[in-house]
């Protein structure tokens, strides 16, 4: 009777990398759904393009690096990167923008560093920043939410634009796109307007104004649908925490520090600094807090380290938003903090059982 020998522990929890990644994708669903509702079909097409490009790029690199294809493709991490990047792109980005972004994310930021687990920078954010720096025009052209748009594009029309640059007859790209609330805030504040005036300009849609009467924070904060998208990601993120796929430390520290710092400035001068609620529910904050900053590979390791890491992102986010050159800055904040991770890891070690104290 031949016996198999192995070393302890002989049992393993059923959790696997694949499962972790799939759960993350699942948790993105509510946010993505709301996004599509407000901004149309572009995101769906972007996700599909990004996913295909990611799988091709990952497979090619794995073959070049002679790694077992099935095992490494099966971890689904490339898919997560692709979806996160697609979410960060404007919904009407041309297809080649997406492909270039994914290429940088997967090939340069991930595989050239040694693949999953070895990349010091968040791949999706590297892809995003490369695009933002190289193609600033395309990257800052956002659609207004559909209920406010003068023209509701159909799926085919969106596809025609993404793949062929063809707009429906009689429409110009400029007429279709609009600055995001963060842009608006930034530009108008720069022109000397006050927060109250700007908020009036941003306008409210029907759903949010109805809700505004019930829950006063909505509609008045991130501006037009953005807070709903953020709420969707918040929901997914909370579910991830509940399922223990991610820890609470990074999101709590990041949102907490953002709320504190924006709160302090808003209290100091409410007419020139937007409220914490606006900051928390605009742009890609919730997506960033729960899905991007929590990328385990590039985040700090220990619990106290993660608190510091998250807080750092929150503060950088606010600083760049308010005083920096870009209206939203999740990508920059995350990448900057990625650089600090080795130092954080070195400084913030948890107190080992039986050491010091007592």
């Amino acid at each position: 009777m031949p016996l198999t020998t192995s070393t302890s522990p002989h049992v393993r929890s059923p959790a696997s990398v694949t499962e972790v990644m799939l759960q993350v994708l699942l948790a993105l669903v509510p946010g993505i759904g709301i996004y599509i509702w407000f901004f149309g079909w572009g995101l769906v097409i972007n996700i599909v393009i990004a996913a295909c490009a990611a799988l091709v790029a990952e497979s090619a690199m794995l073959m070049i690096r002679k790694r077992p294809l099935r095992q490494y493709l099966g971890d689904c991490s490339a898919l997560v990167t692709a979806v996160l990047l697609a979410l960060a792109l404007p919904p009407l980005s041309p297809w080649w923008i997406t492909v270039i972004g994914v290429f940088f994310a997967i090939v340069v930021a991930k595989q050239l560093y040694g693949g999953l687990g070895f990349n010091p920078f968040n791949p999706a954010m590297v892809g995003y920043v490369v695009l933002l720096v190289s193609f600033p025009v395309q990257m800052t052209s956002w659609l207004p939410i559909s209920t406010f748009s003068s023209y509701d594009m159909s799926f085919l029309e969106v596809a025609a634009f993404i793949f062929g640059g063809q707009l429906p007859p009689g429409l110009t790209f400029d007429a279709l796109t609009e600055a995001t609330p963060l842009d608006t805030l930034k530009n108008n504040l720069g022109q000397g307007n006050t927060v109250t005036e700007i908020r009036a300009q941003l306008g409210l849609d029907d759903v949010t104004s109805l809700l505004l009467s019930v829950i006063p924070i909505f509609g008045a904060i991130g501006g037009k649908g953005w807070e709903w998208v953020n709420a969707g990601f918040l929901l997914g993120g909370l579910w991830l925490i509940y399922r223990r796929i991610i820890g609470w430390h990074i999101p709590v520290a990041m949102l907490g520090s953002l709320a504190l710092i924006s709160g302090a400035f808003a209290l100091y001068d409410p007419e020139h600094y937007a409220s914490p609620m606006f900051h928390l529910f605009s742009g890609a904050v919730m997506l960033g807090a729960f899905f991007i900053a929590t990328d385990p590979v590039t985040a700090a390791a220990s619990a106290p380290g993660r608190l510091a890491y998250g807080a750092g992102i929150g503060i950088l986010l606010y600083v760049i938003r308010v005083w920096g050159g870009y209206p939203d800055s999740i990508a920059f904040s995350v990448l900057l903090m990625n650089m600090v991770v080795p130092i954080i890891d070195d400084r913030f070690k948890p107190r080992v059982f039986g050491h010091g104290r007592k």
Partner: protein
Amino acid sequence: MKRRLWSFHGGIHPAQHKVVSTHLPIQPQRLPQRLVLPLHQHIGEPAEPVVKAGERVLKGQLIAHASGYVSAPVHASSSGVVTGIGEAPIPHPSGLSAPCIVIEPDGEDRWAERLPVENYRELAPSALRNIIREAGIVGLGGAGFPSYIKLNPGHHKSIKTLILNGVECEPFITCDDMLMRERAAEIRGGIEIIRHALQAEECLIAIEDNKPAAFESMRTAVAGMDRVEVVRVPTLYPQGSEKQLVRVLTGKEVPRDGLCLNVGVVCVNVGTAAAVHRAIHLGEPLVSRIVTVTGSAVGRPCNMEVLIGTPMNELIAQCEGAVERIERLIMGGPMMGFALHRPDLPVIKTTNCVLAATAADLPPVRPVMPCIRCGACADACPVNLLPQQLYWYSKTKDLDKAQEYDLFDCIECGACSYVCPSNIPLVQYFRYAKGDIWTREREKEKSDLARQRHESRQKRLEREKAEREAKRQQKKSALDAAATAERGQAQAAAAMQQAESRRDAALQEAEKRRGEGWPGRKDGADAPPRENDRESN
């Protein structure tokens, strides 16, 4: 009033699989054809045989005596004939053989004379400890540390709390559970004796909340005892680990490198307490123990009272196994037990469980993926280490860094490996790294010693040369003095002085070298030194 409980960081909840082996009461065992008794069943020095091949022995007769302070004697577990003393395969992760005494039972199972203690309270604690030592009792929870040492707190330490460990947090194992259900009175007897030996103020019996029957049984058994309390603790692995349990019950953290004694606590497994009771009240040395025989390959999983030395495959056969192909045979639990190389190895004093596992019980090892730094391991670690960092440094052989990250505080509980979504065998890396560091330290000591020897030899040669030179000078100057009498006196004195000071310098140098001692000895011979005694809070 509900007792306040503390918590420790991390811990996991592996599937329990305990019910399978608790349907039947503790079963008796058929006498096997052969009993194989390894001389080394405990931590410390192996025992030395006091019988010869061909000798007749009675059950409970001493067949090997303890060979040092940390050692335990071995007794014949049934009456019969010693058929051989020599190397035989033993249950050990290495799969190697070790010296054993083999007994062929005569089937009568006849006891040698048993000498129960009439009134142990009249005995001094040291006399009690001696009896416990002679009875060959070691910790039955799995570690196998000779019990009498634990019951010796030394002169200066007073023990506040005696903790009876009935936690049994490993999956599959139920021997302590069944013992507490069926033989609570024996455990009570043991508690009384141990408390007397330790003069402990209070006694806490810790039982996880997945063993309600054992809890009730123990509570009834100790009812009316002064300051004895049965404490229900939440089910969590590895709570049965001594330092973690002390923390949960008392809120005290045993310092690194320290013992429970340092915080005034002694932990004893419930099985050990029952063995102490038998040794004192019945005069029976440790010749048998309760073993859980379980796993899907076993047709009738149960707990058995097993004679030490019984081959495990006989136990499996008696429990109607193997009904399915045994994929892995594990001694101990699936978290910390080890896989055996062959099925006919003997039960030893530390065998709490024989797990005949099918492929379904213990799924095959999945392919290892890269670490994604998810931190699940750090969240699970009961010692609050950062296994992902330790893994990185162990893998890259950066042993200094691994020590800086407190590798030696790892209790090898396996919680980190259990939760790792990348299936990385973390504990295995840590074991290797520890081994590497030990080897490195030993080699360093050796080479340091060699270097010192070489250097002191050099010094000696130099010194001798200097002395010869001095003598020569002396002679020469004496001759010179005779020849040139007018300058003679002064010159000779100067030469003497010079030679002397040169010799002194050489001696001093040699002395300094000797005084240095050799590095790496501060923590005792076995433990490698920790360079970074960092207070991290």
